[in-house]
């Protein structure tokens, strides 16, 4: 192997110099990870999938008998989640390619680890709901939104401000969904369709214009 006369990295001898180098490393890492692979189309795709999921749920709950609707409900939302993840992966990969980066990175693994607890909590609540629908009822949508908000806010720790705003918007929408008076005439699923679907679409359009599609 080639042996250089000079070291590849500078040999640092003082704490002040070491701090300066650590700052350079941190800045370079932040610069290379922040917002460059966000895809506006991905946000829009997730929003549209959520809207489709809400519409199809309406059909299932109206027409399928118990317990068939439970399986259909679980299958439908598993498919929505799977489709959203695949769409997000493919569109982020496409965007990463445009800016000259790979999609699989230590940064991406950080984001997945940050998002996982919220998704796992939502999975547990969903299974509980399918087994005991009367305990939670239509408020499952509010719980989902709160879990998703927790995931988005965890991801926002490593991301741009817009992601944090989206997370807090979901948190507020989740609270509204849970605390909405039943007499208001708009159900939790409709609120989820409007907010979860709508916020994602607005976020996607904004991110597309600001950072790229």
């Amino acid at each position, binding site marked *: 192997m*080639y042996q250089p006369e000079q070291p*590849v*990295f500078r040999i640092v001898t003082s704490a002040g110099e*070491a701090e300066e180098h650590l700052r*350079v490393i941190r800045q370079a890492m932040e*610069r290379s990870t922040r917002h460059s692979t966000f895809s506006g189309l991905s946000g829009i795709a997730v929003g549209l999938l959520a809207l489709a999921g809400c519409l199809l749920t309406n059909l299932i709950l109206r027409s399928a008998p118990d317990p068939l609707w439970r399986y259909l409900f679980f299958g439908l939302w598993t498919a929505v989640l799977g489709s959203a993840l695949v769409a997000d992966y493919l569109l982020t990969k496409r965007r990463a390619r445009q800016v000259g980066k*790979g999609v699989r990175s230590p940064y991406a693994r950080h984001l997945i680890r940050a998002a996982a607890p919220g998704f796992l909590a939502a999975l547990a609540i969903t299974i509980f709901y399918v087994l005991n629908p009367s305990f939670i009822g239509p408020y499952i949508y509010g719980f989902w939104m709160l879990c998703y908000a927790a995931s988005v806010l965890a991801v926002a720790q490593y991301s741009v401000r817009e992601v944090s705003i989206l997370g807090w918007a979901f948190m507020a929408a989740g609270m509204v969904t849970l605390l909405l008076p039943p007499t208001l005439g708009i159900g939790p699923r409709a609120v989820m369709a409007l907010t979860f679907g709508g916020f994602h679409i607005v976020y996607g359009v904004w991110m597309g214009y600001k950072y790229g599609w």
Partner: protein
Amino acid sequence: MATVRNLDALDDVIHQKVRLGVMSCLMASGEADFNFLKAALGVSDGNLSTHLTVLEENGYIHIRKEFVGRKPRTTYSPTPLGHRAFEAYVAALEALVRS
């Protein structure tokens, strides 16, 4: 304060700092192409190219060349040796700061 954007304006440490910047970007991103590194570090083509060559000759980075459509594209990623060297370097810096 010296920032990554102003690497060209730094002192004699510049060469090593560019290499450090390259490795930091690659460690965070997994892989990146020439244009991305150039934009992220704010250095010139020739400068970046020189430092990438040093890193490659030392086995710290892997280079992949391909065509995207009709355009050539060169992508860089850290090798296992580069990973170890970078982590050891950061650990040494942290130890120095702690001491």
